[in-house]
């Protein structure tokens, strides 16, 4: 299994850069979510926690993949990213009121529709999460196509 070395050095560099971007997005999302909850004091709701479960490990998986570039990283990270993306989509729709609140799973603690911040008037926390997962999946998909034999 040496398909991590396929192509030219230039191509390998590109692949590494794409994975590096994935890692940056995941790291910013992780630190950003911690900043919201721990620094600004926004209590995370249940759905936020599920998305955190998906994004936090990605920082480490991508990180390991970066140190010794491993094509398997796509296979291991994509399921987490897709799961997180689905939850983020659900959360965003719930937050925007597209999905009625009666079917939401939060019964205690902080309601998942609690409004904390809306950057530029529309970038809510669930939407930020959704965008992060979308970016990661897009990058991983690109990487997978480049790595395909």
């Amino acid at each position, binding site marked *: 299994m040496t398909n991590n070395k396929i192509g030219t050095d230039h191509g390998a560099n590109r692949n590494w850069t794409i994975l*590096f971007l994935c890692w940056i997005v995941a790291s910013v999302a992780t*630190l950003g979510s911690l*900043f919201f909850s721990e*620094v600004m004091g926004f*209590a995370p709701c249940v759905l936020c926690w599920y998305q955190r479960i998906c994004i936090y490990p990605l920082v480490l998986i991508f990180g390991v993949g970066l*140190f010794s570039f491993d094509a398997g990283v796509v296979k291991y990270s994509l399921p987490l990213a897709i799961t997180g993306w689905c939850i983020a989509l659900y959360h965003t729709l719930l937050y925007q009121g597209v999905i009625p*609140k009666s079917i939401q799973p939060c019964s205690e*603690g*902080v*309601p998942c529709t609690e409004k904390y911040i809306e950057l530029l008037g529309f970038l809510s926390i669930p939407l930020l999460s959704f965008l992060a997962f979308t970016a990661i999946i897009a990058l991983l998909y690109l990487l997978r196509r480049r790595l395909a034999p």
Partner: protein
Amino acid sequence: MKKTHIVVISALLLLMLFVLGSFLVKGKQQDSLSALARKNAEALVRDHSQTAGSPDAKVVIVEFMDPGCETCRAFDPFIKQMMAAYPGKIRLVIRYAPLHHGADFMCAVLEAARKQGKYWETLQLMYDTQPQWADHHNPQPDRIWQYLPRLGLDLKKLKKDLDDPAISRLIAQDMADARALDVRKTPGFFVNGKPLVRFGYEQLQALIEGELRANY
């Protein structure tokens, strides 16, 4: 530059940003809210404010609340526990910050019920039945009329009192005070004039217990 170095340096940069941001935000929040509370000390408690607990209590919790707010509802038992744990030492002052749709109507109902001596019973009823009338996407404050008869209130008188201009003035004053103190979320707590900056049960408990230690 070696790739591994890029990763390590980026990680360190991100972490530094995080820590720097934390110090900036925390310091700013604490300073600005405390300064605001000091500057607007008279806005914390008004003569019209409803209070619970001993008038001699040296620890005064001011809660800016909204009967339709789920978190206010969640905090209600916690505050009661704290007051029960330190009998006679804590006083609660209720202020209105009706941020939810239809919440000013609920505050008016509370004030009208107060004229019949059923303020706390009505507030409890509102919290108990909140899921039925305060749904975020379909709030129906009118539904409270189904539940109010349970308290044996004179509903005719209550409806008439709702139009009392003194009540709307009182709510408007509370709203103005909430703005002056930068209460943008409910519940907004102040303990002996100190704002609860980091929100949460433990943080509020720590703030209250700190004031209890300082005053008793």
